[in-house]
């Protein structure tokens, strides 16, 4: 059924765990639109046929709606629209909440290419390799203007902003190669900002990952933290220092100097490294310099992986 619907309205194959739900909602909305549209068409044509003007200047009776009818109509459409919203927003909620066990891949967009960095430091351009059947979380940022990471086959899209880290995730279901397009206008070669997601079986993926640099993510994170001087102000063992310790940070609720409380997830930590004074943790001075343009995305990724390992 869903495959037939996809072919009718030209949807690409559904290759992620979201696709079926989203396409069913699409079908339900389209069907109710057509039914109500047909009803209105029939009513209109009936009125026009029955009440065509016959003489030149007739007077007509006053016909007025009842308050009850108007209220019933308002109630009916409100209930219908809110029902669509409830289903759609529940799906949106799932689409924007990566599961805890998702593997993180860091995405950097620039005019006009995509760069994908894995936690172990391996990086690729324009080709994103992911395993089938495992959740993948993307942490995205841009080096220049706003881009948008769009994989039609996954029904997934997330804007990629300079100076910010955004997060999206998917669980690819079917091995294959699917296009990635940039969906936010980004300059003269916007239409050429093309990439591919290659979904491979889990075993192949693991083999491919092992064949890479092979470094342990945490070891690489330690190396970066030492080389880039992070350890001068952040202890790795929970001890006191000028800045917060990196141990136990990942996933913790952090009270900020301005009273808000944030959860130190991937996006927060990545941003805190690159733009440290945006959200200062309560009890610390905003003295850390920005690392925007200094750290490579792969290095930011390695540091976040280190913090994840220091739980």
């Amino acid at each position, binding site marked *: 059924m869903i495959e037939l619907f996809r072919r009718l309205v030209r949807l690409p194959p559904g290759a992620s765990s979201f696709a079926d739900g989203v396409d069913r909602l699409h079908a339900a909305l389209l069907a109710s*639109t057509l039914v109500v549209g047909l009803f209105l068409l029939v009513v209109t044509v009936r009125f026009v046929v029955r009440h065509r003007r016959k003489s030149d200047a007739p007077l007509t009776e006053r016909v007025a709606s009842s308050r009850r009818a108007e209220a019933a109509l308002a109630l009916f459409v409100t209930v219908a629209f809110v029902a669509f919203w409830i289903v759609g927003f529940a799906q949106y909620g799932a689409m924007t909440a990566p599961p805890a066990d998702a593997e993180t891949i860091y995405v950097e967009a620039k005019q006009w290419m995509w760069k994908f960095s894995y936690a172990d430091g391996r990086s690729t351009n324009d080709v994103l390799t992911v395993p089938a059947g495992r959740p993948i979380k993307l942490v995205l940022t841009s080096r220049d203007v706003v881009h948008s990471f769009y994989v039609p086959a996954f029904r997934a899209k997330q804007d990629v902003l300079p*100076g910010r880290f955004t997060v999206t995730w998917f669980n690819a279901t079917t091995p294959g190669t699917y296009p990635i397009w940039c969906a936010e206008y980004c300059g003269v070669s916007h239409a050429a900002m093309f990439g591919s997601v290659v979904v491979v079986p889990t075993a192949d993926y693991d083999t491919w990952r092992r064949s890479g640099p092979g470094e342990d993510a945490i070891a690489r994170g330690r190396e970066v933290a030492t080389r880039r001087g992070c350890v001068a102000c952040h202890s790795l063992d929970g001890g006191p220092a000028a800045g917060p310790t990196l141990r136990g940070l990942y996933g913790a609720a952090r009270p900020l100097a301005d009273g808000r409380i944030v959860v130190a997830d991937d996006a927060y930590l990545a941003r805190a490294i690159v733009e440290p004074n945006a959200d200062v943790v309560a009890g610390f001075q905003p003295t850390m310099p920005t690392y925007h343009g200094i750290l490579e995305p792969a290095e930011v990724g390695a540091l976040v992986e280190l913090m994840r390992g220091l739980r």
Partner: protein
Amino acid sequence: MTAIPSQTFVAEETSIASWVFTLDHKRVGVLYLFTLLALLALGGAFAMAIRLEHLGPGETLMSPMTYNRLFTLHGVTMVWLFLIPSIPSAFGNFLLPIMVGAKDVAFPRLNLASYWVFAAGSVVVLVSMFAGGIDTGWTFYVPYAASSPTAVPLALIGIFVVGVSTIMTGINFIVTVHSLRAPGLGWMKLPLFVWAIYATSVIQVLATPVLGMVLVLVGLDHALAFGLFDPAHGGDPLLYQHLFWFYSHPAVYIMVLPAMGVVSEVIPTFARKNPYSYGAIVYSSLGIAFVGFLTWGHHMFVAGLSRFDAGAFGLLSMLVAVFSAIKVFNWVFTLKRGAIALGTPLLHVFAFLVLFFFGGMTGVAVAATSLDVHWHDTAFVVAHFHFVMVGGTLTAFLAALHYWFPKMTGRLYPERPGAIAAVLVFAGFLLTFVPQFLLGNAGMPRRYATYDPAFQGLQRISTVGSWVLGAGMLLIAAYLAWSLFRGARAGDNPWRSRSFEWRTPSPPPKENFVRPPRFDVGAYDYTRPLEGEDE
């Protein structure tokens, strides 16, 4: 038929200066109308060029840079210079004072100034786009707009100036409706077009200053590296998107509410029938104007909004759809037990109803947040907003142009080519934009100079559709130009409408009324004959 009255607002004075410095709201309306028609033709020509380029998947006629400039020219011209001012500035200016029984708007000099400010702003925008070439799209998203090697600041200044003119017109209409209604003309007796223009004016006055502020800030970012929106200088691009859509979403209602006003006039006249529920149409207009301010975030579901924000904006957007649905049902049921004549304005209104219904329902679809993730920034959204803005505003503009043509000129247009053109415009529009829904489903992003060859079939249908649509528009231009000089005399009230603007000679004399207007028969009362009618 009766002769054209000798004392008309056109015949009274004929010097060029009498038009350039006119304080007559009708002449200001006519100046606006001709300017807007020229801008519509220009924006339409850009659209035809865009469609032509997409006949083939690669570079067909032009380089990607040229294409990017063209879609920017098309969007900026149509949105800022045509759709936003269209119905209020042309028809609102001409008709609103007559409909409230006044001799003119409250501030005639401000009204004249608004026209010339608008003309100057339009010239600046067009010159900057032609001379410098702007490729940012009509949305000017930063940081691209702040770094794009084009003449962005000059265009922003032009749009700022156009915005000032919009505010002037809005204030003028609000004050006119509040203070110049004829004795006995209470709020709930006002023609529905007046209510629609009033609600629009409120949005214009409240929202446009925010646009002006944003444009100044982007200009500062561009010229002085101010850094408010550019992260390279510590700024935030999302802040720009919030501020931009805070104006530009209500701007959609600035475009579509006046169109709804036109529909609410044409249906009662051609069905000779009172509106099914006057109150429901009035209150839903006000509801749309109010809730329209609270929905801007639905342009940003994938931009990095918090989940809570996205949900709230999605739910509030549904409210706009509820008000719109109430209107659609009331318009259709106004036909019930009427005496329906299928004149050209009514045909355009039927096109409006179909296109607005599908535009609205696809709006519901994108407000159901999860679907928007797939459709955002694709051809689907392009089709959706063209259904609302062209299918809604442009068809209503065409309906208004035909409906009030006898009012403004004293002449009739020929019905047969009118009906043919209405069918051509409707069919051409569907042929152009239905394929774009499917292209969006397939994942074709918008603002792409080139595209995947797999999309060529649908792209070609869309391009052929644009030719049908263009042919319909040219036909309208041809017979209206002919009718302007050769059309049959219309008499004062060719549609035998009860609406107030038809109770004065057509075209009206300089001060609108020969005798003081009377409103004892309501604007939609078809149960008894009008004074002087032989019924």
